[in-house]
């Protein structure tokens, strides 16, 4: 069994070796055929290369010939252009110059196409034609004429809050543009109009509104910014009232606090004095002594001491008046002191600001005015605040002290007189009491 199987195995191996040999022979044949095909391809490619090299040499010869012809033609052209070459250079240069000039000019704000034409002309590599030359001339003339007229045109206005709005814009020459009574700033390059966040004083705005509503040919006054918006842009830079007050720093705040205190004291004192004055006037009219007012208290004193002789009564009266005076004059001195202290504090602020300025000069020199600005503005603002507090306080103190003096005067000089009248009345009409 084993022997036969071995025999079979051998036969099988022999058979298979035969098959493999056949397969490899077939593959060798295939390879040989492939090699032949590749060789043929190579030959064809070499032939192609030779052809192309030939073509290249002919083409480069043609290029050289063309180049030579071109050079010849260019020299010919230059010869024939003569002076005109210069002219085209000048045209390009002046178109560039005008473009740079007009990009910020209000006069061309409503003609963006002219601006685009100038930009194209100044950047063009080709020679400008007759029409383009004429148009450049006309655009420049147009700008000159436009700079001298007041016109209305429709455009987009960007408000301070960034909100865009299309409306009619009034342009005054090449100087200012206004829309709906507000001055506009022209943004260079973008040809956009911004409403200035801070506008000039009201009467100038009224001029602008007047001008907008004027009929053509009418002459109206108008506040013009001849610097083409530079002055108006400086307006935006200048600080507001609140920012100014803040420049006064701590001393400024102290001065303002004192001012508020002084005005509060004045209000309290004046209301009190007004009340007392009203009661005193009522007392002057009535016969009954009312203890609710100074004059009434003095009259009550008389009524309590009627038995005394006039001289003693007068001494007692004077004493009573002296007791009333402090209550009427209380607080007025404080207001006066506040009015005197405010300018002194302003002076203190000035000195503190100047010290700071000189310190910055010591450190940085005088080269940069911005570094000194903080100290100087504190110095000036505190002085101004001191005066603005002192002036009304001085006035109010005078008003209040006039009032109190009037009341004291009634107590002092008229108290006795009233008393005398009272006595007289009593004597003439004894049964009344």
């Amino acid at each position, binding site marked *: 069994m084993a022997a036969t199987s071995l025999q079979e195995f051998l036969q099988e191996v022999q058979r298979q070796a035969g098959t493999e040999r056949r397969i490899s022979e077939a593959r060798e044949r295939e390879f040989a055929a492939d090699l032949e095909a590749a060789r043929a391809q190579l030959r064809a490619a070499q032939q192609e290369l030779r052809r192309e090299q030939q073509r290249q040499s002919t083409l480069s010869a043609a290029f050289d010939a063309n180049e030579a012809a071109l050079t010849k033609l260019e020299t010919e052209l230059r010869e024939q252009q003569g002076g005109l070459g210069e002219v085209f250079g000048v045209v390009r240069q002046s178109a560039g110059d005008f473009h740079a000039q007009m990009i910020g000019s209000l006069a061309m704000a409503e003609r963006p196409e002219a601006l685009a034409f100038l930009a194209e002309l100044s950047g063009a590599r080709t020679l400008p034609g007759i029409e383009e030359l004429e148009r450049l001339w006309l655009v420049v003339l147009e700008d000159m004429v436009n700079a001298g007229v007041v016109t209305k045109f429709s455009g987009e206005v960007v408000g301070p809050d960034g909100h865009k709005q299309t409306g009619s814009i009034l342009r005054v020459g090449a100087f200012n543009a206004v829309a709906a009574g507000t001055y506009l700033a022209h943004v260079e390059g973008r040809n956009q109009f911004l409403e200035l966040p801070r506008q000039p004083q009201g009467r100038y705005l009224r001029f602008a509104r007047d001008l907008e509503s004027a009929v053509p040919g009418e002459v109206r006054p108008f506040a013009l910014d001849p610097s083409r918006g530079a002055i108006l842009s*400086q307006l935006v830079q200048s600080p507001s009232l609140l920012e100014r007050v803040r420049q006064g720093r701590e001393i400024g705040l102290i001065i303002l606090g004192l001012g508020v205190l002084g005005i509060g004291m004045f209000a309290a004192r004046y209301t009190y004095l007004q009340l007392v004055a009203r009661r005193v006037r009522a007392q002057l009219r009535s016969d009954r002594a009312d203890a609710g007012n100074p004059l009434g208290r003095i009259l009550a004193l008389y009524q309590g001491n009627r038995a005394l002789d006039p001289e003693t009564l007068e001494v007692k009266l004077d004493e009573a008046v002296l007791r009333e005076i402090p209550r009427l004059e209380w607080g007025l001195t404080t207001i006066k002191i506040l009015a005197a202290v405010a300018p002194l504090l302003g002076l203190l602020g000035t000195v503190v600001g100047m010290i700071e300025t000189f310190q910055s000069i010591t450190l940085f020199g005088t080269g940069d*005015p911005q570094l000194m600005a903080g100290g*100087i503005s504190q110095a*000036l*603002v505190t002085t101004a605040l001191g005066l603005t507090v002192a002036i009304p306080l001085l006035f109010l103190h005078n008003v209040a002290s006039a009032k109190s003096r009037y009341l004291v005067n009634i107590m002092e000089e008229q108290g006795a007189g009233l008393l005398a009248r009272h006595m*007289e009345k009593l004597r003439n009409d004894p049964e009344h009491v």
Partner: protein
Amino acid sequence: MFEQAYAVRHFFAAGGPVMWAILLVAIALWTLILERYWYHWFVYPREFARLKARWEDSSNDALWQARKIQAQEVSQLRRQLVGSVFLIRTFITLCPLLGLLGTVTGMIQVFDVLGFHGTGNPRAMASGVSMATIPTMSGLVVALSGLYFSIDLQRRGSAKARVAADVLSQILVKAGKHETQTASQ
């Protein structure tokens, strides 16, 4: 006409906002001064004559009371005579202070321009300088224009009050003498 109005407006614009305060004070000051002179010339003589007539007519028996009533009336008269002179003087004191305030605000303007343009542009500083100088000048002019009149009114007022006190007490003395004479007879 328009040009004059424009010149005035330009003057006020060059002086800055303080000019309006000075104008207000000047108007108040001169209204008070004119009112005072009107009182002195037209109202006071009539008032005084009325008072004098009343005292000449009245018969008083108690001298002390009469004196006191007179003192009261004279003090009332004095108050009317010199009443607003006090306020006039206050306004005169306020004027130079307002001018000074204008100077300081003008200087603030000048330094703003300095910060913006540097020192190279003196023409730009001119508006600040005029804002500094015009209010000072105007304040001083207003104060000086009122100063003489305030002193004159004060003097006039106290002199008239003194004369009134004198005349009234003379009347009283005469009446008292007359009374004592009739009593002795």
